[in-house]
């Protein structure tokens, strides 16, 4: 067992607790947070593939020492194949996702520390706790452990919004919590129903119970569990009808916070989407639900973004719309479609963070995010304007940037799956995305500067420019060499398309 696997969760938790203790010690917080955040993307690179059994409790078939002396009721039945403890699975897809999450977290934390005059230990605590939760969500093979970290991630999200001190943040945070107060227990209820039917909370064991015929897969209770888990999937990732509250959450966070929060949403979407596909893919309705919801998210998210005047809200809606592309890839159910969807997830996390931090420089300089009150920023910050323009091109899928490759793969996958109309919708939505972006870009950078617009901070921190350059470099790299990403995803995609495990 590789001890680095659990350390990917433990390290950010320790960082979070440590930063909280250092409240009001500005320089120490800065130094420690940056050093520790740098470890986040390094850990998944160093860790080797494998399973981690907490407490060393591997299934009895893999652990003859433990099974000695146990009653035949356990060793002589299917119980011997079950996982008795929480299990973390670290494979290619997890390596890639945790690396991307770590990279976005590192850059967002770095930007936050340099853009804030007095760095808050509590803000760092929330960011690190969120990263720890999402890492656990991506690693765990235990659906109850997933629920626990799903809740912690929701609390960390609320925490980031509360600490941001943006006007109206308390109201939005409370709304989000009330909706979460309904969705989360329903997720637990779905897990309880699965536990009741299969006797397990380990996902691999649940699947083997269903496949081996120990449990009737057509049991209506399983269908109900599927419905409840899908409901919490909608909440966790901000899919309709939760798209408005999710975009409001992004708009009430500081831009670097929003960059990280959208990464949380995308990875929650991917992790729970994979769980739904793994457990319920034998139900034809599960794929239809994923396709339907994703299509709705794409259309609603992107068209509502076009109507917004607040930049953060606009990109919040665009982020929701982009989730639709990922969902369509997953919902197609083919190995190529799933690879394309997961590739799009990686690209979306990077590009949306790029845009939030890029446009965040405007908020940093002016304290304003309403495009009607902005203008003339091209003269003030031409380099940032160019970087933001490239980020917008990336989101719209302009070659040779990364989303071009993933969106092209998605369109090809939809044609291969016999659904070319989905490809047409995706192209149309990409055009609307580009229009939305250009509307914001024109208003902020190309229009004359309004007289009443006050510049509070003339100079953008170099750390922010560095973060934007890193995002651009990664976008170009993944655009030119897509196999760098898809190579990590193929094993998972093939197994999902062929029926798990």
């Amino acid at each position, binding site marked *: 067992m590789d001890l680095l696997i659990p350390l990917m969760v433990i390290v950010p938790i320790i960082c979070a607790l440590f930063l909280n203790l250092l409240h009001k010690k500005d320089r120490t917080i800065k130094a420690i947070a940056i050093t520790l955040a740098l470890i986040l993307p390094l850990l998944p690179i160093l860790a080797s593939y494998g399973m981690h059994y907490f407490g060393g409790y591997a299934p009895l078939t893999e652990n003859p020492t433990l099974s000695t*002396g*146990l*009653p*035949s*009721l*356990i060793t002589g039945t299917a119980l011997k194949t079950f996982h008795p403890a929480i299990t973390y699975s670290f494979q290619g897809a997890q390596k890639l996702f945790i690396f991307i999450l770590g990279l976005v977290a590192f850059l967002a934390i770095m930007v936050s520390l340099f853009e804030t005059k007095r760095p808050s230990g509590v803000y760092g605590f929330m960011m690190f706790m969120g990263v720890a939760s999402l890492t656990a969500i991506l690693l765990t093979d235990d659906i*109850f452990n997933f629920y*626990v970290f799903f*809740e*912690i991630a*929701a*609390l960390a999200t*609320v925490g980031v919004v*509360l600490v941001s001190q943006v006007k109206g943040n*308390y*109201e939005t*945070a*409370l*709304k989000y*919590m*009330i909706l*979460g*107060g*309904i969705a*989360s*227990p*329903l997720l*637990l*209820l779905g*897990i*309880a129903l699965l*536990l*009741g039917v299969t*006797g397990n*909370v380990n996902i691999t064991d649940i699947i083997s119970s269903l496949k081996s015929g120990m449990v009737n897969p057509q049991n209506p209770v399983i269908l109900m569990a599927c419905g409840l888990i899908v409901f919490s999937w909608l909440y966790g990732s901000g899919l309709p009808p939760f798209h408005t509250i999710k975009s409001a959450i992004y708009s009430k966070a500081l831009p670097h916070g929003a960059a990280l929060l959208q990464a949380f949403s995308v990875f929650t979407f991917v992790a729970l989407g994979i769980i739904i596909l793994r457990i319920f893919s034998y139900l034809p309705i599960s794929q239809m639900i994923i396709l339907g919801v994703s299509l709705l998210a794409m259309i609603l998210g992107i068209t509502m973004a076009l109507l917004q005047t607040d930049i953060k809200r606009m990109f919040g809606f665009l982020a929701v719309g982009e989730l639709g592309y990922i969902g369509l890839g997953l919902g197609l159910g083919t190995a190529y479609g799933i690879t394309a969807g997961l590739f799009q997830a990686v690209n979306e996390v990077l590009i949306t963070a790029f845009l939030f931090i890029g446009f965040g420089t405007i908020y940093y300089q002016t304290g304003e995010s309403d495009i009607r009150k902005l203008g003339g920023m091209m003269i003030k910050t031409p380099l940032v304007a160019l970087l933001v323009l490239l980020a917008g091109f990336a989101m719209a899928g302009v070659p040779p940037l990364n989303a071009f490759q993933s969106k092209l793969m998605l369109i090809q996958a939809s044609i291969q799956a016999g659904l070319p109309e989905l490809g047409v919708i995706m192209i149309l939505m990409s055009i609307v995305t580009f229009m939305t972006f250009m509307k914001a870009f024109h208003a902020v950078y190309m229009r004359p500067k309004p007289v009443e617009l006050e510049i509070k901070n003339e100079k953008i921190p170099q750390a922010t420019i560095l973060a934007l350059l890193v995002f651009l470099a990664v976008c170009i790299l993944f655009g030119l060499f897509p196999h760098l990403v898809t190579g990590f995803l193929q094993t998972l995609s093939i197994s999902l398309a062929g029926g798990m495990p």
Partner: protein
Amino acid sequence: MIIDTQLASLFTAGALIVIGIFAAVFLDNLIKKVIGLAFIGDGTNLFLIAMGYKPGGIVYIYLPGMARDWFAQNAAYPLPFAMVLTSIVIGASTMAVMLGIIMVLYKKHGSLKASKILGD
């Protein structure tokens, strides 16, 4: 009779969840909404406890002198109880945060009306 106890618990859990959802969605007072959310969480916890109930079973603590086979056959399934314990802790933390936010909002708006504070 024991089965009836389990069924009664399951029905109570269902009722708590339905009442909780009604309160959280339709009541205008923020504190009542939070109480509704607590009902949903408690209903789910009761559902889990009821599921882990084993008619005639014993507490799942292995004591010296117990035969392993006998214990394996008679002990209640411990997993739902462990899950409920965790769920209670999570529920308490979430509720503490919610009530904290409500206190701040009450000081700001001087009201607990959701329609006034949260809008639509």
